[in-house]
């Protein structure tokens, strides 16, 4: 789904056959506050996401996961370092953040409108997008009339409506029950495949990361640094309860625990 990049920055395009990364962070640092009270949320993070990749970012509390997505999506500016995104970034939050004054369909249509889609095409496109997340015929419902899982799917449809080149997701399924989450993993995986998405998926749920990602990046906490990168070669379709996923989750958890233990000294 090519769409003219609105805030594309000149990236150092390689001359070879390798595609330009969809997202690239070079030594990105983000500091909140000043002086004694300054908090370094991210410290020299290098990150490259290839087009079509499903990247999961895991970390304990305070690892700057949300900061990372804020920088990726261009909502926040890094204190130092460089951010290069080949195209646009859509961002989806833990809560659906649907506008409560709009119906499900109107939420999707607003994203289309703000993207500049002509009025005539909006309703049809919105209906198509809702169909892709299996919410056909529910365009007229308001967010409070939908379940948590349905709201997140509307949010997903709205993110698609942005036609962003990269979909950044901030713990999108964390507030859902396990059953719904499982089904939405299947859904997201299907949509990622069908729509050739590039996904950056932030989560504290290690199993979820192992279930979904091509690659897992483990962040340290305070400041957030890249502690490890793990390629995931478990064949798809995966099940969250399969031994492969569990084993990988165990490995990543061990890394995280070690990381958390390092902080035991600080008070």
């Amino acid at each position, binding site marked *: 789904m090519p769409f003219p990049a609105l805030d594309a920055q000149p990236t150092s395009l390689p001359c070879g056959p390798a595609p330009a990364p969809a997202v690239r962070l070079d030594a990105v640092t983000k500091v909140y506050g000043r002086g004694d009270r300054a908090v370094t949320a991210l410290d020299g993070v290098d990150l490259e996401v290839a087009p079509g990749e499903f990247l999961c970012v895991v970390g304990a509390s305070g690892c700057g996961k949300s900061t990372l997505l804020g920088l990726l999506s261009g909502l926040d500016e890094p204190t130092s370092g460089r951010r290069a995104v080949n195209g646009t970034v859509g961002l989806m939050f833990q809560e659906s*953040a649907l506008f409560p004054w709009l119906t499900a369909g109107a939420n999707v249509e607003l994203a289309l409108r703000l993207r500049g889609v002509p009025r005539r095409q909006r309703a049809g496109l919105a209906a198509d997008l809702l169909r892709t997340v299996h919410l056909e015929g529910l365009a007229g419902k308001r967010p*409070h009339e939908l379940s948590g899982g349905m709201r997140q799917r509307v949010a997903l449809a709205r993110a698609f409506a942005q036609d962003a080149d990269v979909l950044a997701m901030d713990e999108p399924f964390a507030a859902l029950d396990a059953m719904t989450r499982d089904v939405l993993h299947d*859904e997201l995986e299907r949509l990622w*495949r069908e729509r050739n998405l*590039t996904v950056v998926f932030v989560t504290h749920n290690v199993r979820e990361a192992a279930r979904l990602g091509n*690659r897992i990046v483990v962040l340290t906490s305070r400041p957030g640094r890249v502690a490890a990168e793990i390629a995931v070669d478990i064949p*798809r379709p995966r099940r969250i309860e399969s031994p492969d996923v569990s084993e990988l989750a165990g490995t990543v958890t061990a890394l995280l625990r070690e990381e958390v233990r390092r902080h035991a000294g600080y008070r």
Partner: protein
Amino acid sequence: MPVIAESTTPGGRADGGPATVGRGSIGEERSRVAAEAELAGLDALDRPRPAGPGAGQPRVRRAWSALWPKLAACGLGLAAWQAVVSAGWKSRYVLPGPAAVGRELVAMVADGTLPRAVANTLVRAGLGFSLALVLGVAAGSLMARNRVLRSAFGSLLTGLQTMPSIAWFPLAILLFQLSEKAILFVLVLGAAPAVANGLITGADQIPPLLLRTGQVLGARGFAEYRHVILPASLPAFAGGLKQGWAFAWRSLMAGELIVVIAEKPSIGSILQTRRSLADAEALMATMVVILVIGIVVDGAVFGRLERAILKRWGLGRG
């Protein structure tokens, strides 16, 4: 830092996901059908049911259960009024009973005095409140998201809101003489600050997540106001409108008492003329009308608006 990229597709997005998925086997198709069924089942189970207290009752019964306490309160008020009159505290010429006032009310409606006056007054109220709405929204929008304007004019706005509107009249009369404009001037000054404050409060209470979402979707500048900030502040803004109406109605009554325009009868001018004629029955009949209009507009217009917004957002009892 080594970048391990064995699972990513070097061919770019067009190739789709990793090689392990594109096989489209029968098993995959079956699991997909199963997933869709699971999804549909979860949707059906998880959907909040639209059931509130009284949702199953017939409409008439619901209306009655809302109405009878009000009727009872009216009856109690009338009874207390009658009791004071019957006690003989004041002469009936000065303090007539509800029956006499009721007869006078019917007579004033029948001979057209009250309808003409009410029409004039309501036109003023509508015009003045609309002006206050426009000015209040404009001022509120500017101040809601601008820190400098807010600290510069925030306390002034609160001051204006608490200032008794009647204090404006001497100046208004100097500026506009005893005219329609003087009344409107005071009415707008009375109501606009409340409207502006309501909008500012509403904007302050917008969940940050919604603002961030608006930014992610690309709502900037005017589009952010139009699509995010204004609609998101509606619930608190409805409260501001209600308060603005109360101020407007009070200012208008004060204005009509002071600024009596000869060829234009109004509720206020009736009060003024009947007081000079010591016609207590007509005076009190008019006061009843003022009270009723205030209640009806508050409930039927602004109360309904508030309920509609809350219901739409899924916040209220509906």
